[in-house]
């Protein structure tokens, strides 16, 4: 079976293009999903015998969830979002007195790609086959609204509330979209990268100052060994 898209499969080598790395369960899942929502799958990634990522279009988010639930993925693990923009405030790891490099502002998404700054992702598990799928979808930049999964998986209700208050993503047909954690008068969406941590701006972390410089030759250090008892 040829690879399904330009997703790359990891580590293990294929000897012949037709041989599958791993046990084929995850390829079967993708095929099954494709038969339900065919053109809405944008990209997939499989790490053999390990994990599976599928990215779908924004419109196919709910349909993909439904198809997976009917295929046996009845256990709802979680739902959240990722903001792929690098933080304009830096990561606070570097010495603030040292010279600052130009921060990188390119939005580079991760596995299975992406075209927008925000992406929602969810994970569902099939308890009989012991397989899980991470589903991803782009959130449109101009109108950050997705369809709600709360009528599909009841547990998604709280997860979508949290996602809404942390990222500012709306969910259509959600019964009760209000703040989960933050007080009602909180302004801003904390988990977006452009939300600053004010305490760090007032008093920056001095960076990693307590580690000795690397020894000249050997990068690695073998730790002291056994103490059998």
């Amino acid at each position, binding site marked *: 079976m040829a690879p399904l898209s330009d997703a790359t499969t990891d580590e293990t080598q294929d000897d012949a293009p037709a041989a599958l790395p791993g046990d084929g369960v995850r390829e079967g899942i993708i095929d099954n999903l494709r038969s339900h929502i065919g053109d809405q799958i944008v990209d997939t990634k499989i790490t053999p015998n390990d994990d599976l990522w599928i990215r779908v279009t924004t419109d196919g988010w709910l349909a993909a969830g439904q198809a997976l639930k009917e295929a046996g993925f009845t256990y709802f693990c979680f739902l959240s979002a990722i903001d792929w923009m690098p933080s304009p405030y830096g990561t606070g790891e570097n010495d603030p007195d040292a010279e600052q490099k130009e921060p990188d502002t390119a939005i580079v998404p991760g596995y299975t790609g992406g075209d927008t700054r925000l992406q929602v992702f969810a994970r569902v598990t099939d308890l009989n086959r012991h397989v899980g799928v991470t589903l991803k979808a782009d959130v449109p930049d101009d109108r950050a609204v997705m369809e709600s999964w709360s009528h599909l998986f009841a547990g998604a209700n709280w997860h979508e509330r949290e996602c809404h208050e942390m990222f500012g993503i709306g969910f259509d047909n959600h019964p009760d979209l209000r703040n989960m954690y*933050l007080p009602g008068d909180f302004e801003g969406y904390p988990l977006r990268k452009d*939300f600053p941590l004010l305490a*760090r701006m007032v008093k920056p972390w001095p960076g990693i100052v307590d580690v000795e410089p690397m020894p000249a030759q050997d990068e690695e250090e073998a730790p002291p060994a056994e103490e059998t008892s």
Partner: protein
Amino acid sequence: MGLVDKGRLPAPLTKLFNISRSYSLWVYQWGLACCAIEMGAAFGSPRYDVMRLGVIPLPASPRQADFVCVSGTVTDKMAPAVKRLWEQMPEPKYAISMGSCANCGGPYWDSYSVTKGVDQIIPIDVYVPGCPPRPEALLEGVVLLQQRIKNEDMAAKWRGDEFTTLQRSRAVAAGEVDRDGELISETHSISEDPTPDEARTVPVYPPEPIVVGGGPIE
């Protein structure tokens, strides 16, 4: 008792009252997070028994408590509840802040939802640093609080004065220091380093909150 707040209680009686107050404290356990477990171990487990110090950890409500032990992270959402709790307690009341989160925000010092220290909301008498502090550290905090109560000026406390240690209020009464803590006498200036003998008579402004372990407040 009108004698107490007019300051006319004789010194031996004040001392007796202070001792008996300090050995019959009822503590309200305001356990919020991980430190609550160590507080539970200190107050409720047979190993680090706090009742041997005279402290009863069982009041069901803040209205029956002498002091409150705030242990764990105070978030901005929880802060009004802490303030309301403090207002519900009757005077004379004390507070122990247990753990780094309650002292200063702790490991979450840069979080957007954590109050950086419960002393932003209520006045604290003893800080117990640690993450979490061992139960013995909390017991030392309680002992230090008891010492503070023993050295307290009941009249000042009853009136609600800021400076309640005996040393302080005696200095105020003797006219050496005014209410704001400024030295009145011309011969003592703040820039001179006091000798060890002088240091005992020159009070420290404000009464330093006690930190278990003696270090800076973490």
